[in-house]
């Protein structure tokens, strides 16, 4: 289905990659596409750091005895795995890479509203990342990524303040990205690009930005309070003073629950684009999908205490949050129905992006449904702090968000790099990821339900758990191979891949109406939109007719 252009001997057309050369042209760029690539490199780096910690965790859990690392070290391993993966990989991943690259192009703009703030965003991310690296190299943190008080404020002697400040700075990066997207989507749409014609990727990023803007400041101030309590002995959460550690949890989870929607919504946006393209159909229920993104953003702020059912909150409050947690599943379910309806009677093409989308559909659904199990107070009491919870969130964050991220990287790779990746290897990698993922995390549902606690390095009092743990570790190895393969062939394709045409997938969307890779200001002429989103009937109708003059 891809259309490759034979390499021509004429001089390479100017695009955003070759417009300027030199390190400073990258480090001082305000081009959203270059900033997206800066982010791509950085988050890939942190992904492997987080993955390294995961590897050590899984190696320790191969045997029931705690024989690889000491208990304190293990505490640091799962803490650093969580902090790095959540704050330095998942939260920025799609918005800062694909979002930064595509949002202006999808709406027909030349750049984001505030290009210099975009660059500042990346520098803040890097500063936060360097602080976190330094923290890890000089001892790390052992509180779990959730750094609950009073352990984090009064008892641990690890580097909470430094880790907290690193996350604070990275959080500011996240806020600025969200601010940029909201203003861009409101103010910079090209003529004819009404809200109802926006790609659903844009709606997803708009909803994500709302969460980033309104949630992150709360965890930021919580970090300030924890740092103040540790460094200046200003006690707010200290039980010795009459402080309430549960208050910390309220303030922490007020952000950290919506944070999971920051991690999944962009991926849903990617999946929507991929499913439409590879079914050759417009999305079923466009407005339902669009408004469900906003609904997830709003409802997501109403459910945070479902992380605290056993922490000592009032039963009546728990009932309310349990009910609301069921309600928040509805908009996600609406999306799954609409994606499925889109597939129905579509002309399905099984290219690599679509394989990731199929993986997403199944794994996100499982992850989401197990969330409903967790929302039930009775089950929650039984499986809290067990591997059931670990499996639940990994199904959504890895089986959902990371699959969507990989699918999106494949889908837009021709646009970003001007090259085609090798399709055979890509399909193989997708399959390896899917198998590896399920082998890693499905056993963990069973382990959790049978009672294996999370954050334990030694389960020698329950040696019957070893078989499932070994399966899980084996799966993690396979998963690691699946993640390495795209690194290799994407890099390979930048030099040896077939050059891509403007629209190798014959996909809908303004980004496909400009060159691959695009020129620095995205379009040679500002587009004027007169067609609806996902106009696949027109795109597939022979012969192709161009409706308006657009970039060439």
């Amino acid at each position, binding site marked *: 289905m891809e259309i490759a252009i034979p390499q021509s001997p004429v001089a390479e057309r100017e695009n955003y990659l070759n417009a300027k050369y030199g390190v400073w042209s990258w480090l001082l760029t305000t081009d959203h596409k270059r900033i997206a690539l800066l982010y791509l490199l950085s988050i890939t780096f942190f992904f492997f750091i987080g993955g390294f910690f995961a590897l050590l965790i899984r190696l320790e859990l191969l045997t029931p005895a705690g024989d690889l690392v000491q208990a304190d070290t293990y505490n640091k391993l799962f803490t650093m795995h969580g902090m790095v993966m959540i704050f330095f990989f998942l939260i920025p991943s799609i918005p800062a890479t694909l979002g930064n690259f595509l949002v202006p192009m999808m709406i027909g703009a030349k750049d984001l509203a505030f290009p210099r703030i975009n660059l500042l965003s990346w520098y803040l991310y890097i500063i936060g990342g360097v602080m976190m690296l330094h923290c890890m190299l000089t001892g790390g943190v052992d509180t779990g990524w959730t750094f609950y008080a009073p352990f984090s404020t009064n008892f641990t002697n690890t580097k909470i303040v430094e880790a907290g400040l690193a996350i604070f700075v990275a959080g500011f990066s996240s806020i600025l990205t969200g601010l940029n997207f909201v203003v861009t989507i409101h103010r910079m749409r090209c003529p004819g690009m009404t809200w109802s014609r926006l790609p659903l990727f844009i709606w997803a990023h708009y909803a994500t930005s709302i969460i980033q803007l309104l949630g992150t400041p709360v965890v930021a101030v919580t970090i300030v309070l924890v740092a103040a309590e540790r460094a200046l002995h200003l006690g707010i959460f200290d039980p*010795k003073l009459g402080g309430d550690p549960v208050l910390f949890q309220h303030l922490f989870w007020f952000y950290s629950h919506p944070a999971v929607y920051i991690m999944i919504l962009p991926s849903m946006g990617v999946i929507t684009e991929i499913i439409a393209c590879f079914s050759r159909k417009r999305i079923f229920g466009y407005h339902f999908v669009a408004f469900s993104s906003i609904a997830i953003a709003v409802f997501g702020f109403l459910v945070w205490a479902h992380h605290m059912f056993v922490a000592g909150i009032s039963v009546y409050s728990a009932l309310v949050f349990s009910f609301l947690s069921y309600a928040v599943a509805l908009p996600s379910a609406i999306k799954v129905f609409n994606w499925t309806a889109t597939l129905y009677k579509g002309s399905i093409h099984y290219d690599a992006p679509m394989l990731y989308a199929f993986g997403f559909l199944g794994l996100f659904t499982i992850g989401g449904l197990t969330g409903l199990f967790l929302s039930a107070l009775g089950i929650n009491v039984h499986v809290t702090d067990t591997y059931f919870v670990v499996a639940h969130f990994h199904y959504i964050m890895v089986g959902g968000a990371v699959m969507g991220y990989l699918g999106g990287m494949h889908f837009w790779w021709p646009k970003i790099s001007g090259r085609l990746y090798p399709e055979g290897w890509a399909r193989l990698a997708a399959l390896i990821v899917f198998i590896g993922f399920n082998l890693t995390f499905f056993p963990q549902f069973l382990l959790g339900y049978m009672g294996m606690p999370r954050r334990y390095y030694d389960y020698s009092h329950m040696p019957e758990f070893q078989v499932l743990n070994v399966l899980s570790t084996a799966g993690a190895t396979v998963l690691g191979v699946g993640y390495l393969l795209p690194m290799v062939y994407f890099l390979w394709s930048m030099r040896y891949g077939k050059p891509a045409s403007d629209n190798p997938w014959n996909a809908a969307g303004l980004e496909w109406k400009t060159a691959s890779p695009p020129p620095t200001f995205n379009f040679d*002429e500002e587009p004027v939109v007169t067609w609806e989103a996902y106009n696949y009937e027109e795109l597939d109708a022979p012969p192709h007719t161009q409706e308006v003059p657009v970039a060439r």
Partner: protein
Amino acid sequence: MPDSTLVGLHHEEEHHPELLHHFADAEQQRDASSLGMWVFLATEVMFFGGLFCAYLIYRRWYFGDFAAASKTINMGLGATNTAVLICSSLTVVLAVWAAQTARRTLLIVSLVVTMLLGLAFLGIKGIEYTDKFEEHHVPGASFSFNNVPIPGRPGEYANPRHAQIFFSLYFVMTGLHALHMIIGLGVFTWLLYTAWKGRFTPEWHTPVEIGGLYWHFVDIVWIYLFPLLYLIDRHP
């Protein structure tokens, strides 16, 4: 959104020197900047909101202790600071109006007075903090709050541990507010410099407007901090 018939022609129109390249026209740039500042202020609402949440919960739990602690901070200075900030908000709107109506002198004077009032606010805050330090009301090892009666409950004395929570919140909330004031002074220094250079015109004075929005927000936070921290129970 820009008019579609002018697509591709905007290079030929008069290019305002302050217009950034990625915007279609000055109006889009101004609307984007304004929306950006409003959205940023929304994030600041949530930032302070977390502190107000903690404050409200502990005030409810330890009302008597909080009332006792609140009575020891200087209401006169707090009220003066409130008036100082209100006056500074007035001078800010005067600055914006001056920029809108090309009154350069008034603009510069308004900006200077605003900054002086901001400095006055910080100075008064410094006096308050010094008083608290001398009275051993700063949380930490040297905190002491013994035998302070709870207002309205004769014979009862405040629990020093709970009072320490009040003072922790007092310092964090007013400290964070003061930090925002300092940042505001930095922003206004730049505004003053730019106004002095004559760059603001009725057609383009967006930084003054959005700088003003930020200043007003900092004022609004204080409008809530003052009664919550200083006026819990001032019955004589």
